[in-house]
């Protein structure tokens, strides 16, 4: 009843808002009826009709006044004024297009970075699980308190938990792995596969889009091999075929039947596209094989109750199996905490990032405020006249706020579009760097983020609109009117604006420093030192044994030996292919040597230390290669001897170094026979030392790279000892064209052999990757935008200074002041502000980019100086127009302007 009444009231209000004319007409009708009744009463009392009407009007009072008061009592009474303010605001935006464009870009920039930062933080720290009652899904984890690390669950653990928990239901075990999956006659492609118990689908409560999900009967040893595929897999690999259910694909060479297709967006637990039944009975009872065990909190039970029960069950396991579970505690985690092990300081980092972005937004809005203030000053007389005509200070502030809100709204829409563009690319970049993302990561802009953007919009409008409005309307209308009438203008850029300008310019100076760091390699052609354009590279991996064979496939060394055998067979096939000249392997290719290894040389001649390395140590990249690597890439040993197959097999501690190593670390002295050891906690033993036996040419060594990116050490190891087996195939013709053939040969060698990301060797360098390029483009865009906005700010300040002091300049010129003197007086303050900003930004940037200032090289100082000079030049550029304007002021014009 109450609800209906409220709804009716709002219906009435909305009608009154939309049909204002009709409501006013009703008020008139109501008042007319009132007067008529009063007149009739007077007539009944014996008055003549005209007297009765007159008395009725007297009794009623001033009708127009009452009408106005009645309208003002309506809730939307402020609305027509505000809509007028918006119309005026729109007119002002159109009237000053340059300012509108710059301010809109600034707000869009602020909203875009703010929204992106917020959305990333939200998804990382407070994700929404897109499953029915997703928040009730928890994970069970064994935690070894002795080693302070998690211990994967075993089949025995799983069975113990499944039977022991009453507070957690639908317990499901999940193991995620990479496997080679082939569709039709095509070669296998690497795919993330989740081996799950059938209860997983009951846990997530998501039915299949087509066919069925996995069932308990599928887990039996004698069951047919079946698989459920995801929506994206179905669309991309099976062309969205209506006959997908029932068709057969090959997983690691084993034919399996698709029994179901999951709906779009389902990817539990790691955005994977294939689910297979987990055959628990094929797993050794105590082997730690299960990456995840999930469950759902039982109805009316909380996580703390489940944790209490987990403590009891964990203690029971520790008593029953003291050998393996003595130090192990059973924990109950939320789903996100279990799937994504976020660093503990990430919360602080993301909170800092968001604070920084809000401050950046405030700074940008401060810039817009400055521009709007400069414009408001040009409208000072108009605002004063409005004040003189009775507009209150609040009314004028509301008008300027409405203008800023309109501008912010436009900027906000653009900002959200930019955020929508950036976010998917950001998550793609994350996926490329960190592996598959959790399934709940939504690459679109969420409604919460849009709400945040709306709040930011009001925040921006408040800064950009209210701050200048307060400034413009301060000091009393009379005083301002007198000041304005005298021609000098009473408004000045005060301390707030000085801070805004200084911080803005400091930030502009600071932002490109990381860019300078990147630019060391980016854009400059790093000579490969070998015909890299003729090489195709890919990572080679081997699936675990499938089916019943999986039981015995638990020793990593055995699997590595199997991979080596497959590699040799594949290499043999490749060498017999007419398109291939040769094939080799390494754990990393020259273009992207990762890792910073600290080494200490023996007592012979050597540089004291490498640039940006801890005192007394040298930095070098360390690479494991095929003994024939340098022959295959056609970069044979320059001096000393080559590495041999015997070195690889016996794992000798002999190494090759590159020419830069000799030049930078050994100061050009003979390296053959010299020894070094890697950094270790204890004193080096006899086994710690490595001996240099030869020098090889520099491969993909940039002139601008730092020490550990330029100096290389090469040891040789057999394929089974490679942490990551990356092959390089010297092809005839375009290497990219050979990628398909490579997959076919791998498939023919072993269907379980995975060829990961085959691509030409020229495109593997980090900064050439799509993710690296995206980051760089983003940084360049931000820098350019910030610079542009700073220039606009500097322009506003200088133009303001000239406009405010037109009369003074005129008088000074009339009294014979020289142009330089005039400029010094007018631009003294803006120049000091710019110098302060550049100084602060330059010092901060330099400090951040060079953590050890005592070891800064002269060329770095030179680069920094050039950059600071470039910033000063940009600021000077923004002063050109106001300077010309100041120099052209004639005394007669200034006096004319006065009158």
């Amino acid at each position, binding site marked *: 009843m109450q609800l209906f*009444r409220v709804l009716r009231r709002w219906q009435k209000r909305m009608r009154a808002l939309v049909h204002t004319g009709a409501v006013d007409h009703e008020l008139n009708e109501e008042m007319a009826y009132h007067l008529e009744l009063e007149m009739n009463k007077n007539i009944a009392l014996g008055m003549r009709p005209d007297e009765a009407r007159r008395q009725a009007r007297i*009794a009623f009072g001033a009708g127009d006044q009452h009408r106005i008061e009645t309208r003002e009592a309506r809730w939307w009474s402020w609305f027509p004024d505000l809509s007028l303010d918006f119309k005026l605001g729109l007119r002002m935006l159109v009237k000053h297009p340059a300012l509108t464009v710059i301010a809109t870009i600034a707000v869009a920039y602020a909203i875009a970075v703010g929204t992106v930062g917020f959305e990333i933080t939200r998804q990382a720290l407070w994700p929404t699980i897109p499953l029915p009652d997703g928040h009730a899904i928890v994970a069970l984890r064994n935690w070894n308190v002795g080693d302070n690390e998690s211990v994967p669950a075993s089949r025995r653990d799983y069975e113990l938990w499944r039977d022991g928990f009453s507070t957690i239901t639908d317990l499901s075990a999940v193991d995620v792995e990479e496997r080679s999956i082939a569709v039709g006659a095509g070669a296998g492609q690497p795919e993330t596969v989740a081996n799950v118990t059938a209860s997983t689908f009951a846990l997530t409560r998501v039915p299949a889009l087509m066919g069925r999900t996995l069932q308990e009967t599928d887990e039996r040893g004698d069951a047919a091999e079946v698989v459920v595929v995801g929506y994206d897999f179905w669309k991309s690999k099976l062309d969205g075929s209506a006959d997908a259910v029932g068709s057969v694909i090959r997983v690691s060479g084993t034919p399996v039947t698709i029994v179901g297709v999951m709906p779009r967006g389902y990817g539990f637990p790691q955005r994977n596209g294939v689910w297979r039944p987990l055959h628990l009975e094929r797993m050794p009872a105590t082997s730690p094989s299960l990456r995840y065990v999930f469950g759902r909190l039982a109805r009316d039970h909380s996580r703390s109750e489940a944790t209490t029960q987990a403590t009891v069950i964990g203690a029971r396991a520790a008593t029953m199996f003291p050998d393996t579970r003595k130090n192990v505690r059973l924990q109950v985690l939320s789903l996100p905490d279990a799937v994504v092990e976020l660093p503990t300081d990430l919360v602080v980092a993301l909170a800092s990032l968001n604070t920084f972005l809000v401050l950046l937004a405030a700074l940008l809005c401060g810039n817009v405020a400055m521009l709007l203030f400069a414009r408001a000053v040009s409208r000072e007389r108009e605002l004063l006249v409005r004040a003189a005509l009775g507009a209150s200070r609040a009314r004028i502030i509301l008008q300027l706020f409405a203008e800023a809100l309109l501008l912010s709204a436009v900027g906000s829409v653009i900002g959200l579009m930019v955020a929508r563009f950036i976010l998917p690319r950001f998550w793609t970049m994350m996926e490329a760097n960190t592996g598959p993302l959790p399934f709940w990561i939504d690459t679109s802009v969420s409604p919460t983020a849009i709400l945040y953007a709306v709040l930011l919009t009001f925040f921006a409008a408040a800064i950009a609109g209210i701050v200048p409005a307060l400034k413009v309307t301060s000091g009393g209308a009379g005083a301002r009117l007198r000041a304005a009438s005298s021609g000098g203008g009473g408004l000045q850029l005060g301390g707030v604006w000085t801070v805004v300008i200084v911080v803005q310019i400091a930030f502009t100076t600071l932002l490109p420093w990381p860019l300078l760091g990147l630019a060391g390699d980016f854009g400059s052609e790093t000579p490969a030192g070998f015909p890299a354009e003729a090489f195709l590279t890919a990572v080679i991996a081997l699936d675990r044994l499938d089916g019943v064979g999986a039981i015995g496939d638990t020793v990593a060394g055995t699997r590595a030996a199997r991979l080596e055998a497959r590699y040799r067979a594949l290499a043999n096939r490749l060498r017999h292919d007419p398109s291939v000249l040769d094939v080799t392997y390494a754990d990393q290719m020259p273009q992207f040597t990762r890792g910073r290894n600290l080494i200490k040389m023996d007592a012979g001649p050597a540089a004291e230390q490498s640039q940006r390395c801890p005192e007394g140590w040298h930095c070098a990249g360390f690479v494991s290669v095929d003994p024939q690597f340098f022959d295959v890439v056609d970069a044979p040993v320059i001096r000393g001897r080559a590495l041999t197959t015997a070195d690889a097999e016996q794992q000798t501690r002999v190494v090759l170094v590159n020419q830069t190593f000799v030049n930078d670390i050994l100061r050009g002295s003979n390296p053959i026979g010299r020894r070094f050891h890697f950094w270790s906690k204890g004193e080096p033993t006899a086994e710690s030392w490595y001996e240099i036996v030869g020098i090889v040419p520099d491969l993909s060594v940039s002139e601008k790279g730092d020490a550990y990116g330029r100096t290389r050490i090469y040891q040789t190891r057999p394929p089974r000892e490679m942490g990551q087996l990356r092959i390089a195939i010297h092809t005839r013709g375009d290497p990219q064209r050979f990628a398909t053939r490579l997959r076919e040969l791998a498939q023919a060698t072993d269907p379980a052999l995975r060829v990961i990301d085959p691509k030409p060797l020229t495109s593997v360098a980090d900064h050439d990757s799509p993710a690296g390029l995206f980051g760089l483009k983003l940084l360049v865009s931000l820098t350019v935008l910030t610079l542009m906005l700073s220039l606009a700010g500097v322009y506003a300040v200088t133009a303001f200074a000239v406009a405010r002091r037109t009369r003074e300049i005129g008088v000074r010129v009339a009294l014979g002041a020289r142009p330089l003197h005039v400029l010094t007086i007018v631009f003294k303050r803006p120049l000091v502000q710019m110098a302060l900003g550049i100084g602060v930004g330059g010092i901060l940037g330099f400090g951040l980019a060079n953590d050890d200032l005592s070891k800064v090289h002269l060329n770095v100082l030179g680069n920094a100086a050039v950059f600071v000079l470039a910033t000063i030049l940009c600021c000077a550029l923004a002063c050109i127009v106001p300077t010309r304007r100041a120099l052209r002021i004639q005394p007669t014009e200034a006096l004319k302007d006065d009158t």
Partner: protein
Amino acid sequence: MSQPNDVVRGTLDLLILKALSLEPMHGWAIAQRLEQLSRDVLRVGQGSLYPALQRLEEKGWVESGWRATAENRRAKYYELTTEGRSALGDEAASWHRYVDMVELILRAF
């Protein structure tokens, strides 16, 4: 004749609520009822009723609707809502406290 300002500021809303507590009525009838109840001592500027009625309606204390009068004319009738009835009690109590306080002060000398 008294002017609207003669009505103690803020009491007009209370008086309207009291007038409407008996039955729904239109604006002129409310003015007449107030005159009758005060035995013609209190004369409210009749037009000032309408802003007050609008205020009360905005607060949700009064509801309005067009209906036919006994003479078959169209008129806008106002009636108290549940919240309005409750507000009348609160406002009346508040008024009594105010009057008692003033009375107390006046009797003190």
